[in-house]
């Protein structure tokens, strides 16, 4: 059970990294996520079926996610549409695009090689074989996390953080705040699409309904992670988001294990959400989040 919690938790952890940028850093409620997650999956599935090596499909998924974020950003910044609405517009439109990319609502990958089932993983020694999937996920997730950590430490990353915390700083530095926001949305949705692509490779099928509730899962992970570990100043918020995601998936698995009716799952999530938010309000507030 631990293995599948870690697998699922780390895959959705990449999604949580994306939401960390939009929700926590940019303070942008980005609903694009619900369709950029299946977008990454669709791109990855279709290219895999067409015969591309699964690992390369991830790059195209990331590219597609960038584009999705760019569209939301342009709608928000250039067309002056409210943040929530611009996400909803992209989400709605992408649904059709996802269907057309995939060609149909459900694309199975049982036939050929996937990221987790290919000559390379089959060559793993027997004692490692059960952990092959987790190891690959771990590598991808860590690369995503380290790249994001690095980016946030650069000047562009600093501007990104400033855009959410104190927009006037960005303007003072003679930088266009809108462009910074667009950049943030692009990176966030690239991560979300990557997460969708890895998920699709792991479950070996794309389904148009994959994205339903992706934003809530990501948000819950970020909030759980950053609130539980907020007093640990040495821990990066990207690490917190990843652990939050694993904890979220663990709570779902425990709920299933306890025999709780899956139809209550969303209600449990909502209550868990609320409890963590309320508890975190009773703690002394930190002025700045250590990013």
């Amino acid at each position: 059970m631990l293995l599948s919690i870690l697998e699922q938790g780390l895959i959705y952890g990449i999604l949580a990294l994306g939401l960390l940028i939009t929700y926590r850093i940019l303070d942008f409620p980005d609903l694009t996520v619900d369709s950029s997650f299946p977008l990454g999956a669709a791109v990855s599935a279709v290219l895999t079926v067409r015969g591309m090596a699964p690992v390369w499909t991830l790059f195209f998924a990331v590219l597609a996610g960038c584009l999705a974020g760019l569209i939301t950003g342009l709608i928000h910044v250039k067309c002056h549409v409210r943040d929530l609405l611009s996400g909803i517009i992209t989400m709605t439109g992408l649904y059709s695009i996802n269907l057309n990319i995939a060609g149909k609502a459900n694309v199975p990958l049982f036939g050929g090689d996937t990221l987790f089932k290919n000559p390379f993983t089959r060559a793993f020694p027997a004692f490692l074989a059960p952990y092959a999937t987790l190891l690959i996920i771990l590598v991808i997730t860590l690369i995503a996390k380290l790249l994001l950590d690095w980016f946030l430490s650069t000047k562009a990353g600093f501007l990104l953080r400033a855009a959410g915390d104190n927009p006037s700083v960005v303007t003072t530095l003679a930088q266009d705040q809108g462009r910074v926001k667009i950049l943030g949305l692009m990176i966030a949705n690239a991560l979300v699409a990557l997460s969708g692509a890895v998920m699709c490779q792991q479950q070996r099928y794309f389904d148009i309904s994959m994205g339903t509730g992706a934003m809530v899962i990501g948000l819950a992970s970020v909030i759980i992670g950053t609130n539980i570990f907020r007093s640990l100043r040495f821990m990066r918020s990207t690490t917190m988001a990843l652990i939050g995601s694993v904890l979220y998936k663990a709570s779902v698995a425990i709920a299933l294990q306890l025999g709780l009716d899956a139809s209550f799952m969303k209600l449990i999530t909502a209550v868990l959400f609320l409890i963590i938010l309320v508890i975190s309000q009773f703690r002394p507030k930190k002025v700045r989040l250590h990013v």
Partner: protein
Amino acid sequence: MKKIFAALLALTLMLSMTSVFAEGKTYTIGVSQFAVHGSLDNCFEGFKLGLAEEGFVEGENVVFDFENSNADTGIAAQIADKFVNANVDLICAIATPSAMSAFNAAQDRNIPVIYTAVSDPVAAQLAGTDGTNPGEVTGTSDALPVEAQLRLIRALQPEATKIGILHTTSETNSDSSLETYRQLAPNYGFEIIDKGISTGADIPLALEALLPLVDCTTNLTDNTVVQSLPVVLELSAVAGKPVYGSEIEQVKLGCIASEGIEYVELGRQTGHIAARVLRGESAATIPFELIENSLLYINEEALAQFGITVPEELLARAITVTAD
């Protein structure tokens, strides 16, 4: 060290004994249903019935672990993982995404997956084009008896040439049924005219565009369309075009007739397959099955509304249903 070996040996012996004397064994079956849905619920009812007929009775020698993923593929995957970790004897997966998740999780662990209500197992790669299975996975398909339905429409409306079909573009089940209709319709002198929708809210507009072009419409097992059936029936009645159903529940609601499959029956057939697998047969060698006989349901009130009479030879085997 010797003691440990002895204990291990004894344990292995005991374990092998229990598998030899399977009579006294209690089987755990994980059931993963994709959504709350009348037809899918009926599948599970039928499945239990089918197993019981073969001597696998709930509470006696079978324990069911039932989970519903509420149309969430992420949860479907976690449910499948849970069953695999619990090392259940068999997984029963109801509807396509559940079946795919279950097969993905169970394939390497050799836990048999028996699916039902999968419209097109070949398209879902749960069965090969040559009818072989990709692993310990088999089951039953709820593909519509399209041929029988076309014969029915021809018999009830001898003059009709164009059949309208409303379908949701995001439902794979509908895609494959529609494709079958397109292929078979010319054999009965029909042309299929379809309209795709993306949500239930599109139905009124799509129907207004579709109805003037056709002589009647027929339903697939499209979830979105079926959920909005009252709207479909009302608009069709205004336009004077009869609606054919795809299962009994739709005829009850006011479709004039249907050559349909019965999901309890489908589940029962699935239960029989599961029983064979529990007795030791390999799921990999059992081809997936379609439901053998379709049943003809008619709604006399709706038929009268359109002035359609059912020919004698059909009436003999028709089951008349009315609104509950």
